[in-house]
């Protein structure tokens, strides 16, 4: 599997995602500039990463402007053809604004930007991103956002549950999904979801920030391994 990492003006986690894909996971990685109108040699076997950051300064609404960059048309095409797309933090917001994922990310309920280690519990093994994860042990994956409160109306929420589209929920150290463990007021502690045909993933926490032991936490690497394993396994 090759990775394509989209770079918007204002993305600032792009270099981090490229480092993890290329150096840590030893995969071929392409950089996709927002003005490009092609995906280079990426096929539907490959995964397009939309990294965190403040695309276009997050003005108007996070991800609202990024959605109209030329590359996003190609990314939407790639997704509709079944190719993998993985949006992290700002990337998740862009995917919601582009209607590749349902719902929206609103301002945190406490009105503050928050950056901390955060426990989350995988909710399903039925996707490439989570198929290797243990559903009983919480993962410690840092969050860093000001607009991370996931919101979906009642019908959308019902659909997410019926189709098993919820990937992660915020929890405490021992895995309990409680209101106290919810860092931003997301509906039902939702931290990440996938689309109906299970090839587009979005999550607010940053797995690329904990993929190396030198940083004292490698839980995030498990997601990348899970994603890659599907192809080699």
């Amino acid at each position, binding site marked *: 599997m090759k990775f394509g990492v989209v770079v918007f003006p204002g993305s600032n986690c792009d270099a981090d995602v490229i480092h993890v894909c290329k150096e840590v996971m030893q995969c071929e990685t392409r950089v996709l500039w927002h003005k490009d109108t092609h995906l280079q040699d990426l096929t539907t076997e490959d995964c397009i990463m939309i990294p965190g950051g403040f695309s276009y300064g997050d003005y108007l609404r996070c991800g609202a402007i990024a959605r109209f960059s030329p590359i996003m048309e190609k990314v939407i095409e790639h997704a509709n053809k079944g190719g993998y797309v993985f949006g992290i933090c700002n990337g998740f917001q862009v995917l*919601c604004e582009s209607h590749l994922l349902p719902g929206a990310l609103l301002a945190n*309920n406490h009105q503050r930007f928050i950056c901390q280690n955060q426990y989350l519990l995988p909710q399903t093994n039925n996707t490439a991103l989570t198929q290797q994860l243990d559903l009983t042990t919480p993962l410690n994956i840092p969050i860093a956002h000001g607009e991370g409160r996931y919101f979906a109306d009642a019908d959308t929420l019902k659909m997410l549950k019926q189709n098993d589209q919820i990937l992660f929920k915020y929890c405490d150290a021992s895995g309990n999904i409680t209101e106290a463990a919810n860092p931003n007021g997301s509906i039902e502690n939702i931290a990440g979801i996938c689309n109906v045909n299970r090839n587009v993933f979005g999550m607010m926490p940053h797995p690329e920030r904990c993929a190396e032991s030198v940083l004292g936490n490698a839980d995030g690497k498990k997601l990348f391994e899970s994603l890659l394993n599907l192809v080699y396994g």
Partner: protein
Amino acid sequence: MPLKELLDPQGKAVEHSLHNLGFQATNVRIGKHITLKIEATSQEEATQKVEEACKKLLHNPVMEYYEFTVSA
């Protein structure tokens, strides 16, 4: 403005501090106010253009409703 049924934490926080200052304001809601100038030959054309700009970029139906006025 944020949809009515949506929790508006910013509005709630401002309502709370208004109470502390002795103002009994209720359902305080905070949204965006955008002003812009566009070229248009008529009122209708201007309205139609703004409508389209809202639909395409300025408005996200999942969380917001919008109103606008056009003035020469």
